[in-house]
């Protein structure tokens, strides 16, 4: 597949530069950790209360952290105009976006790998019995955040007031995915745990629709 090779090359570049500097990963981890710890002091983390508020809090924290993390993914290509070099390469421009989406997805998943156990401990939640299903919800929800977030990071990187523009564009559009992710997580932490096919379907449809739109129009998003 013509897209796979450049995506692989660019994904390796993204991972190499991030693991060399750890700028995005560390700031994301610290931000979400602060939010989770602060809120654990705000209300009594009894099991019943945690089950009600915990999932929404986790997804809101991930959403805000994501909007912080996604913003530099294109702005740091501007310092030496490296995006120009990528656009001049004989590759499909969509592969540049796809590699960014995949890289952001990997970074946010890596952050979740550390944060979810801490979240469960702080809020007194038993996630081990539902780990597999919770992982599926996290993957689909994180992918939704990364697809839309990366696309809007590309758009807002060329605009004035770009720091403000990304959350303004991102938060309303991600509302369906955020509701579906939160409700699916609430169901998993219920007694007995249940994973709603409706919410999983909403997340899968959201991801499919926005991936298709990105593939169709991604080339125009990177132009000056």
């Amino acid at each position, binding site marked *: 597949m013509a897209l796979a090779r450049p995506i692989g090359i660019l994904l390796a570049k993204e991972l190499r530069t991030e693991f060399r500097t750890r700028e995005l990963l560390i700031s994301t981890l610290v931000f979400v950790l602060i939010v989770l710890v602060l809120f654990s002091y705000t209300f009594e983390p009894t099991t019943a209360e945690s089950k009600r508020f915990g999932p929404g809090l986790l997804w809101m924290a991930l959403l805000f952290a994501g909007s912080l993390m996604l913003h530099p993914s294109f702005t740091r290509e501007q310092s030496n105009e490296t995006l120009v*070099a990528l656009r*001049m390469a004989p590759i499909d421009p969509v592969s540049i976006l796809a590699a960014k989406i995949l890289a952001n997805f990997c970074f946010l998943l890596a952050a979740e790998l550390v944060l979810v156990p801490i979240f469960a401990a702080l809020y007194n939640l038993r996630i081990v019995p539902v780990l597999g299903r919770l992982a599926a919800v996290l993957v689909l929800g994180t992918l939704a955040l990364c697809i839309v977030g990366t696309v809007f990071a590309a758009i807002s990187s060329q605009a004035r007031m770009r720091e403000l523009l990304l959350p303004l564009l991102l938060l309303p559009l991600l509302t369906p995915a955020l509701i579906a992710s939160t409700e699916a997580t609430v169901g998993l932490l219920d007694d007995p745990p249940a994973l709603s096919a409706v919410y999983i379907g909403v997340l899968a449809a959201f991801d499919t629709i926005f991936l298709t739109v990105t593939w169709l129009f991604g080339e125009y998003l990177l132009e000056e």
Partner: protein
Amino acid sequence: MPADSASNSPGGLGVEFAQFAKRYGARFALRNVSLSIAPGECVALVGPNGSGKTTLLKAAALLIRPTSGSVQFSGASANGAGRDSHDDSTAVKRYIGLVSHSTLLYDNLTAEENLVLFARLYGLDSPDRRALAALEPAGLAARSKDLVRNFSRGMRQRLAIARALLAGPKLLLLDEPSTGLDRAGQHWLGATLSDIAAAGCTVLMSTHGAGEASAFVTRAIRLLAGSIAEDSAVSGDARGMLAAALAAHQEA
């Protein structure tokens, strides 16, 4: 002629602007520029700041869409208007090298990693070997494992030029390439460009000085407020006159 067949022909890639205009908001950066550059021709672009030199180079690099008009390569349309022309544009891009105002390099990658990355994106054989071979003439082989962020401005510029030449371009676009280079670097640049021009590569270069251009430029174009104000051939027997011609263009 399809882009691929044009590119497979020996020598350089010709470029033709037909009534090319580019507008940013209310301001025209280029106004209906019609210009034909033959394969193998070496052209110096001169003119004051804001005259449209960089925009013309970006247009030739397929980085901007025209407001009106078109740019073609050896007869192949490369407007890049939609997915139908995407394959043509990609085929042409393979043969275009660009040295821009910015270095187009990743500061957090080493010199070698930067070149290997682009060698892979261009689908070159043995990317590691090609990268090291490109670093040698630029005088950076000993610093190949150093991060670019630790390089001086002149070293970054040498690496930027090495990156542009990595895939063996048939059309080389240079935007004030001697920026940041010391005397030895300028000498290396002049010699490198002379070799490339002698090999038949088309060169289009914006410049504020005649140093790097005097040895091989065959034509000088002066832009003024987005239009071509003057287009003159530089005689092969009178290289020394180019400096005066460029200086005159700068003063005008």
